[in-house]
């Protein structure tokens, strides 16, 4: 890392800001990231031992898995999505675990819901209708998801439409070519423009790390996205050949930590794609706890982009109660 400017303002921010103040971004400053050099082997070594240095068992495991549920952006992003299956998705998101299981876990009154539902633009209104009065964020993927190869003007228009349709969270995709060609200023402008278009809606910036050739560039893209005002940085669309991995997550959350230390802004993190098992979810939670601390173990700052993860967590929770391995048909589908 290059020299980090420790402005006085920064310290004030750290001291005064309550949690979950949005990241307003900072002016573009390449000095903050140009010297970044990430060592792949060392990152992989750390990532590989995250899950071997910590183990969460018994009631701790149950509690952590329930926490994980609250961090899931329960997602459907398919060409054949209809109002019908989105309605089911919402029902599952608002009631993710069988009530009798929650009761026996002593968590029946804790209003366990997923972190959000995540859909394509056209389904926002159906999700909103299905939710009624229930306070659950609706996330919409936007800006030419998943490839992002449409004009910026169109991207901003999409965001605007989605926000107007009721999305409270917008998952944008960046133009990978800007990263590949190291056009950091261009990336900053693009993300900043999206952020402006989001208005009150929270913005998650998808880097599509599976299409970024080096961890160093992943770190730089993370920095630029945060500088430009992202509320979250997110690994993947779920559509790249390689989606969320622990090493790439480690690279990103280390930049989140540095950005926080510099600015006082807590930026959230969302791994997405390929997270299907309770065991994987625990590894990510451990990674977050170890590298960012307990503050980030909160739906305001951490989400899983996942569709089938919830099912495995439900099975594990029932196993915790009964000692018998569960089956998916024992849990209501979404």
């Amino acid at each position: 890392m290059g020299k980090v400017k420790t402005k006085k303002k920064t310290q004030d921010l750290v001291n005064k800001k309550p949690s979950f103040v949005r990241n307003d971004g900072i002016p573009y400053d390449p000095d903050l990231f140009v010297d970044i050099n990430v060592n792949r082997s060392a990152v992989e070594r750390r990532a590989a031992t995250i899950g071997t240095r910590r183990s969460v068992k018994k009631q701790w495991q149950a509690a952590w898995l329930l926490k994980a549920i609250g961090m899931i952006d329960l997602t459907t992003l398919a060409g054949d999505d209809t109002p019908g299956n989105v309605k089911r998705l919402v029902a599952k998101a608002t009631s993710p675990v069988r009530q009798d299981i929650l009761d026996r876990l002593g968590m029946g009154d804790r209003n366990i819901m997923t972190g959000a539902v995540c859909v394509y633009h056209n389904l926002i209104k159906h999700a909103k209708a299905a939710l009624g009065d229930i306070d659950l964020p609706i996330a919409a993927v936007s800006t030419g998801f998943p490839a992002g190869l449409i004009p910026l003007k169109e991207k901003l228009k999409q965001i605007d439409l989605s926000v107007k349709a009721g999305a409270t969270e917008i998952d944008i995709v960046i133009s990978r070519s800007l990263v590949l060609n190291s056009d950091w200023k261009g990336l900053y402008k693009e993300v900043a423009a999206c952020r402006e278009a989001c208005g009150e809606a929270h913005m998650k910036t998808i880097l599509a790390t599976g299409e970024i050739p080096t961890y160093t560039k992943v770190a730089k893209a993370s920095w630029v996205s945060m500088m430009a005002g992202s509320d979250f940085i997110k690994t993947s669309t779920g559509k790249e050949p390689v989606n969320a991995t622990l090493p790439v997550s480690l690279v990103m959350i280390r930049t989140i930590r540095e950005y926080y230390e510099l600015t006082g802004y807590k930026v959230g993190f969302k791994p997405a794609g390929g997270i299907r098992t309770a065991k994987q979810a625990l590894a990510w939670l451990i990674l977050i706890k170890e590298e960012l601390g307990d503050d980030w173990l909160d739906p305001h700052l951490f989400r899983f982009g996942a569709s089938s993860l919830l099912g495995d967590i439900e099975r594990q929770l029932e196993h915790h109660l009964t000692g018998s391995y569960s089956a998916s048909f024992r849990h209501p589908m979404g």
Partner: protein
Amino acid sequence: MSISKIYDTMEYGPAPENADAALDYLKSHNNKFNLFIDGEWKEPHSKVYFDSINPSNKQKLAQIADANATDVDAAVSAAKKALPKWSGLSGHERARYLYALARQIQKYSRLFSVLESLDNGKPIRETRDIDIPLVARHFYHHAGWAQLMDSKLKDYKEIGVIGQIIPWNFPLLMLSWKIAPAIAMGNTVVLKPAEFTSLTALLFADICKQIGLPPGVVNIITGEGTTGAALVDHEDVAKIAFTGSTEVGKIIKRATAGTGKKLSLELGGKSPFIVFEDADLDSVVEGVVDAIWFNQGQVCCAGSRLLVQESIADKLYKKIKRRMETLRMGNSLDKSIDIGAIVAPVQLKTIDDLVQQGVKEGAKLWQPSWACPTDGYFYPPTMFTDVSPSSTISQVEIFGPVLVATTFRTHKEAVKLANNTMYGLASSIWTENINLALDIAPQIKAGTCWINCTNVFDAAAGFGGYRESGYGREGGLEGLHEYMKPKIETKLSAKPYKRKVLKSKTKAKAVSPIDRTLKMYVGGKHKRPDGGYSTPVYSVNGDYLGEVSKGNRKDIRNAVEVAAKKKSWSGYTGHQKAQVLYYLAENLILRKEEFAAKIVTMLNCSITDANREVDLSIDRIYTYAAYADKYDGKVHSTTSRNVTLAMPEPMGVMGIVCPEDFPLLGFISTVIPAITMGNNVVVIPSQSAPLSATDFYQLLDTSDVPAGAVNIITGDKDELAQVLAKHYEVDGLWYFGSAEGSKTVELLSAENMKRTWVNHGKFRNWEDREIGEGEVFLRNASEVKNIWVPYGA
């Protein structure tokens, strides 16, 4: 604790590994272990047992037999009895036994891991994911070497009965490093584990029994220091392999001096962990954790000295402090900890005393805010900043979780600080600039250099130290040489090679007596002796031939100083060194008659014999000129994604005490291989026939050998050899002389652990190419450094 509460706090809970299988194993021995001798469990003659304690909770695990000298003798006898049959097996037959051991270790890997954690106090994560897999890997790798011995190593044979003494920090791993190569090469062993941590070695003994390893091939005797001493002193032991403290290493070196026992020592360290400003600092932090908080810092190669570039020091310290807060400490069987217990109270006290000393000397102490558990022997992770190289904690090996940080300004200063230690086991270099990394790595005096990683091990790579970190390597081909010897060594003779002595002719015209005192040769200059004395030289028949300088200790001092300072020769490429050596040979060809005549004058031998000696000398220089760019390194096939370079390096300054009997060929056969490897040498030529060496000055002058590479001091051989042996700046010493002189050299060299190669009074026929030249000379003139270079964009 309720799920609801945990849900709110997101704390970690306990995650204990089940210990039942390990405890059942101990019970199967009634929690009382005897000695494993000749394939049987035998009660100790001493009748004495001592307790083995779990350092995590101070509870007694088992009783261990305390072997006395009689027990040691029984074990060595069993090993001796088993030797002929074991070494007589084919490589393949031995390979199958090693393979079976590897398989069993894998099969019982969890039992081994749990038992090791209980006994040592180290986290189960480490035994499960690091120690035990490396143990199995070591046996697999060496099963392969046993298989290949008959073809690839057919010029070598076993050494005999090996006595092995291992430490408590990596009990089973050190056992594997000792036993696997030893039995692969056909040796039989008597191994003594450390008294604090014998249990996994005893389980290993049971496994040897289970696979039907022939009785006596592996004997495990438990006990304390006196047991080890009895093993070291046993006359039927052909070699001692020791891993442990430098202090004990020196005792062993002295105890074995002059006995002809081979010795490999893997001793202490104070290894530098160098961080340059362009390093990936978050990765550096995890590197620090792996370097000094791995195994509670009880690691001989622990990166205990953090050398950090001033420009990033504060930033890095802050990151390390943050990380220290998130380290977790506890019972070794808890799967959620980073740090376990210190092995024993005595070690805990040593650590604490040194930390107090550090505070007293003004270094800034950092420890995390959390408290250690109180039911075992725990010590918190500790970092000192603002530490000067002169403080005790910078110099002394603490062998605990204590990091000592110092800053540097320039690359040059980093190297200087890194090498400012008596040790030289390992080093770690952190930079994202490969040019810088590969520039620094060869400059560090250490056997292992990890670039952007640390504490990475593999059976295929050599591990071992420079300086007072000991000598010999473990792992890889370089490590095998510790457990085999050239078959050709049987050609060493108890008697000197005799040439026919002819009657002196009356003063041959070709060579007139020298009418002046020949000076010595230091730093490319002809130097008068410090003492101002000379010594007469006579021929074999007693003819007076002239005077040579009588060198004294100050002349040695001056020569060593020059040799240590002049670095140009060591920087020559193989090709450049070859060019100089060929030039030397060429110049010798031109003056062949003169050199032959001088040999005739000194030895009163036939001109035919003398010509042959000169011809062979020329031939020999050619041999090493040829080797100069061919005795190169290897890229080891290790298990992680990296290039592991095994580079032969010069030792530095070597003393060479030349054989008496071949005035020119003996000089050439010893000096030339030493300089071929890039060493600067201080040579004491044949005392009785020094004139070939003194004539050689002119050849050195005219052959582009850079000043300081070869320094020659004439005088009393054994007196000067002692000065060299005691000199701290001399890294290696070859001695070809008497048995008594050999012993003295080994004894006196113990103090700085210089590498010694002595002839124990035996003679080589230097005319015999098989025994007078070859790779064994180059190997004894070099150190192998393993440089680990992980890659990945």
